[in-house]
């Protein structure tokens, strides 16, 4: 059962820089709406995970000129912040459980980092769409 949402935000985007700006701006709006400090640690950890999944979705999730935009939603229920992202990129099941790579690696940390930062991290393939779910208790 879904609790009352004290904060809601949604947007769609395709461009990498624009999309990242929207993601960070939405967290800033949530921060202001809830009166949290600029250095609020749980929200900072959530924003870090959101940045990782957002950049994955925006760089790998919209191949081809006819791809649908990324759909994004952010909301707060009680003390739990949740975000959803959907994209039309290829399925990514094989990458979900990748461990944190060694310190010499220049890539491949995003999903491992997001798993560490969140209380719940969901992914499902729904037809031609990837659905991501990011949850953290603030």
């Amino acid at each position, binding site marked *: 059962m879904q609790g009352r949402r004290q904060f809601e935000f949604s947007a769609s985007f395709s461009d*990498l820089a624009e999309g*990242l700006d929207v993601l960070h701006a939405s967290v800033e709006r949530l921060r202001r709406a809830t009166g949290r400090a600029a250095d609020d640690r749980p929200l900072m950890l959530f924003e*870090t995970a959101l*940045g990782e999944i957002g950049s994955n979705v925006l760089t790998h999730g919209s191949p081809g000129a006819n791809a649908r935009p990324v759909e994004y939603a952010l909301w707060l229920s009680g003390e739990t912040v949740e975000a959803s992202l959907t994209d039309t990129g290829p399925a990514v099941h094989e990458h979900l459980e990748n461990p*944190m790579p060694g310190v010499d690696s220049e890539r491949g940390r995003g999903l491992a980092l997001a798993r560490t930062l969140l209380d719940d991290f969901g992914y499902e393939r729904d037809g031609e769409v990837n659905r991501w779910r990011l949850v953290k208790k603030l």
Partner: protein
Amino acid sequence: MALEVETRPAANGVTVVAPTGRLDVAGAPALRDAIGDAVRNGPPKVVIDMEGVSFVDSTGLGSVIAALKQIRSSQGELRLAAPNQQVRVVLELTTLDRVFPYYATVEEALTGF
């Protein structure tokens, strides 16, 4: 918000590279270019002044790792200065804090460099 990068010389042939903004997948190429220029144009001794970096993601960190490899291949050294809380947390969670000794200020990073 594009990453802006300023480069300035410091004592003992050290170059201070100071990015401002988000060091993420969109900003990483600008830092990579600035470090490449610094190493090509002077001794491979670089301090990255992170004070102006509001946020880092794993791709941004990847650009710092690439810089470290490039500088070490020239027998040089790279130091990070003044990372904010978010940057420090990401360094710790990825265990990269073992690779990058970071300093509270640029002045501390320059001491003995």
